[in-house]
């Protein structure tokens, strides 16, 4: 699952973040790279760190929700999508994911 090119990008972004840990754009991009590389624990940690600096970052909450889904952490995914809708009530993606999560048959 580990892709060399992706690992290189991850390394670059990590260096960038070492210089400026509050760079939310870089942190978000890093989270997505981890996610694409199936490194879901790392992706989750990345989004959570980002949210410590920027708790109202809708994209971070949303991507965190999807990373939780990938790990079958359904309750946490639900909470993440609920948070997205709290911050952005018109967010269709979060609305859709939340509806899927509560509809029977459940995916857990």
């Amino acid at each position: 699952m580990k892709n060399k090119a992706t690992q290189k990008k991850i390394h670059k972004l990590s260096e960038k973040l070492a210089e400026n840990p509050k760079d939310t754009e870089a942190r978000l991009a890093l989270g997505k790279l981890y996610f694409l590389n199936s490194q879901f624990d790392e992706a989750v940690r990345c989004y959570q760190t980002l949210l410590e600096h920027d708790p109202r970052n809708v994209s971070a909450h949303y991507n965190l929700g999807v990373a939780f889904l990938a790990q079958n952490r359904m309750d946490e995914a639900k909470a993440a999508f609920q948070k997205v809708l709290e911050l952005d009530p018109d967010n269709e993606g979060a609305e859709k994911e939340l509806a899927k999560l509560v509809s029977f048959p459940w995916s857990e």
Partner: protein
Amino acid sequence: MYRQRLVPPRGTRGKGSVTRSSQNLELSKMADKVPRQFVVIGAGRFGSSVAMTLAKNGCEVTVVDSDKDNVQRISEYVSNAVQLDATDEKALRSIGIEGADVAIVSIGEQMEASILVTMALKEMGIKTVVAKAVTETHGKILARVGADKVVFPERDMGVRLANALLHPSLLEHVEVSPGYNIAEFEAPKVLWGRSIAQSAVRARHGVQIVAIKRRKPGLDEEGESVLEEDVDLIPSAETVINEGDLLLVVGREENVRKFRGLR
């Protein structure tokens, strides 16, 4: 996307499952003949859902409903949507549905109407009429007047819900013949990181993995994370099972149960 199921129609455990199993067999016999033309009477939630799924699968679907709004809504999805009172046999005959392979009567709430329409459809010569019933008595009457299949969506949903609450790790369970099951569940931890051959699934556990469903991480057009479903049908012996994989397994009921319980 990750919520799609591999085993339609869904089955149940216990007492009712023998009937369900034989129904599945009948339905699969029907499927062998590949019915392509369908009539759905009643465009409520159940009827619409049936009609839209058939249409999505390339079938020619005519929907009949007496409500103008229902007809308007469903017309976007199906080949033909007609507003008429289906209990008016003359009107029903006038729309030329005699050639349909299967008719679905989904006006269960109006018991009298569903019985009349079922009778009319059989008299028109439609080979297979599937009718929705709300009570056991209603189902018996539908069977008497010629319905080939009777479905009880609310009752069946109740059974499925109860089973899902009792067995949360079991996503789907269908009895294919007495004593043999097909079930879908998350891959047990003991199999993670090993191929099907390495785990000697068939020899050691007496079951066959017929499909593996996994979710692949990706990004949507807006650059946000998305999980795309990927199904590996009849996986080879070299296929490695990973954490989070959903397995579709077939085998003797006892073996499937033991296999699912592995840690």
